[in-house]
């Protein structure tokens, strides 16, 4: 194995992992903090991807600039969804377990609703565009520019979010809520508002992932489920409720995926799950789980 191949696999893994990390951070906020296992997570990815596609092809807006439009819109959708639906469910559920199963069912409903609305709005057709699709040479290994840019944005968003968590009041409130919602609300944190913001931010990260994905992957209204599954796997791998864990878990899974694709592409998905399940058996609480 020469150096270029090693670079190919290593950087290729990071490129794949960047998107996974973003996806998983979003779900980690929703499941790890807000306790909603959001099966409709992938639908927000789809919404982000379609919004970017439409803004780019119909209005010529640079796909990367669409992040600034996609972000606030999806945040409002996510925030309102939590305020109207999940807050109510949380308050009326007798136990955390009951809330988890009820919100799971509710997110299935949301998945159906969003997908059907997308079908009505955009039609069932597959869509794709090409943006920044040229090779960039990194020490002999060549990668497409759009994937490198995606990675840059994923890391940037991850870092910005980390600073937000550590430095701001809201960030501290979110961390407190992730540790223990009951104590957090005793300490004067408006828990409902914090959880709704978490849910909204989680949806935004999914939307951002969708924007970045749409630059290189064909999109359609039914695309979401695969990404939801990936995101769930990553947060489990990274450790529930651990946002850095999800971030790192995303990169680990990306590298595993790239390595197995290199070795035997037809078994890559099987190997992928096998390694994941093995990891789970060895470390039942995830890599960074406590």
């Amino acid at each position, binding site marked *: 194995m020469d150096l270029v191949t090693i670079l190919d696999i290593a950087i290729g893994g990071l490129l794949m992992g960047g998107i996974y990390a973003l996806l998983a951070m979003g779900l980690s906020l929703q499941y790890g903090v807000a306790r909603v296992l959001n099966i409709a997570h992938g639908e927000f990815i789809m919404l982000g991807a379609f919004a970017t596609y439409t803004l780019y092809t119909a209005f010529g807006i640079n796909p990367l600039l669409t992040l600034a439009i996609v972000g606030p819109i999806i945040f409002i959708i996510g925030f309102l969804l939590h305020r109207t639906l999940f807050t109510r469910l949380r308050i009326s559920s007798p136990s955390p377990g009951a809330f988890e199963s009820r919100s799971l069912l509710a997110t299935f409903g949301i998945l159906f609703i969003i997908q059907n609305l997308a079908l009505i709005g955009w039609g069932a057709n*597959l869509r794709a565009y090409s943006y920044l699709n*040229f090779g960039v040479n990194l020490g002999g290994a060549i990668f*497409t520019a759009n994937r490198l840019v995606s990675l840059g944005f994923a890391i940037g968003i991850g870092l910005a979010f980390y600073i937000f968590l550590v430095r701001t009041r809201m960030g501290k409130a979110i961390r407190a809520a992730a540790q223990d919602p009951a104590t957090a609300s005793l300490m004067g944190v408006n828990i409902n508002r914090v959880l709704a913001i978490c849910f909204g931010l989680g949806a935004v990260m999914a939307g951002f992932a969708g924007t970045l994905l749409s630059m290189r992957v*064909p999109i359609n209204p*039914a695309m979401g489920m695969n990404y939801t599954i990936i995101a769930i796997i990553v947060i489990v791998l990274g450790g529930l409720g651990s946002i850095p864990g999800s971030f790192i878990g995303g990169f680990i899974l990306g590298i595993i*995926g790239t390595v197995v*694709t290199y070795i035997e*592409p*037809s078994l*890559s998905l099987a190997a992928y799950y096998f390694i994941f399940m093995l990891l789970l058996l060895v470390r039942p609480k995830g890599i960074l789980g406590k």
Partner: protein
Amino acid sequence: MTKKLLFGLITITLVALVAVPLCSSSCVPAPAPAKDSIVIGASRPLSGMNAMIGDAAFGPIMTMWEEEVNAAGGIYVADYGKKLPIEYLIYDDATDVGTMVRLTEKLILEDKVDILFSSCGTAFISAQAPIANKYGYVLLTAEGGATIMRDALYGLPYVFISLPFSDHYQLPVFADMLAAKGAKTAYIVSIADLHGVEYSGVAAIEFARVGIDLIASVSVPETQEDFSIIIKDAKAANPDVFCVFGYPPQVLPCTAESMALGFNPKCFIAGPGANFGFYQFTFIEALGPNCVDGVLCFAAANRATSPEFAELYDDLEAIVSPAMLDWWGHPYYAPLVQIWQEAIEETGTLDQDILRDYIATHHFDTILGDTYFEMSGEGGGGLLVKETHPGEIGQWQNGVVEIVGGGPWSNTVITADFIYPKPPWPTP
């Protein structure tokens, strides 16, 4: 005691709630209504993964036919002594085979539709064919075809397969074209499903026949998104011919990655995927209208094939996005409704057995030209004969798909010469 009674009552009520509406429509014999339309039933993927295929492929042909027939007052059916308009009864199978099978039986048993239209996707058609056949409903299949279905036709007299597939006669023609140009080596990427297994398997046989070495045949899971490693491997192997036997979600990223990595094999074939308008539209913004020139696809006809095809594509473009035009499928979906119309008008009936025999034994004059099915022995189903195909292989040239390969038979119309080697990808 009251408790028991109560629970008994509730259970009975619930059972009745479910059972009564179920059988009310069928338990009470309704008087036969006067026939005032031809009801055509179809279980189609309106949602889920296959919706993107169904919506663009046979869907618009159905819509166009309905408008055309009903504008003319309907189809004359001698049995009823009048023209009957057509009326669709479409259910959503949500891209689930189990649902599709059940809804097909609902259309047949409960709705008693006059005609059954095809479901969408090879696996779906494979599951629908035995069901339609069991109830004696003629099934002219649309989006799908495979060697396994042809083999199954021997026991399915009511099933007629229209879409060409791997060894019927796409890949034999393709291999001959390559051999004529002196191609020596090939690299195959295929999706790990029925379609990928079939095409990579048949290609291996056909390539061997004409002396092309298969360097590698790689299969990838359907969720594979990152093709850079595979394209890099292919580039290092430097094959004359590069084949992607997958669907658009594999074909488009493979193409994009090949462009970015400067992978320029002498021949690049990708399908299904490169045979749609969106293949070009994906890259047109960045690279201009000739962005995918030289790429080969499976294709039968284009606007230059005949004035009828020019009209078909113009009509289609009026109702669907040009991104959805399909030079492989649409030439074979359009004749399906023509065959139905002629069969009904000529036999003057909606009786499935009579219609079946008529379709099995007659030549039709459709957009393809002389069109007929070859029957698989006594009591078998039909396969649209290769002599009906106007072409097998297309190539993007100057921003349109030209038909560059076809068999040596009467309907074949070659619209341009096969360019080999393909020009390198344009640079932005």
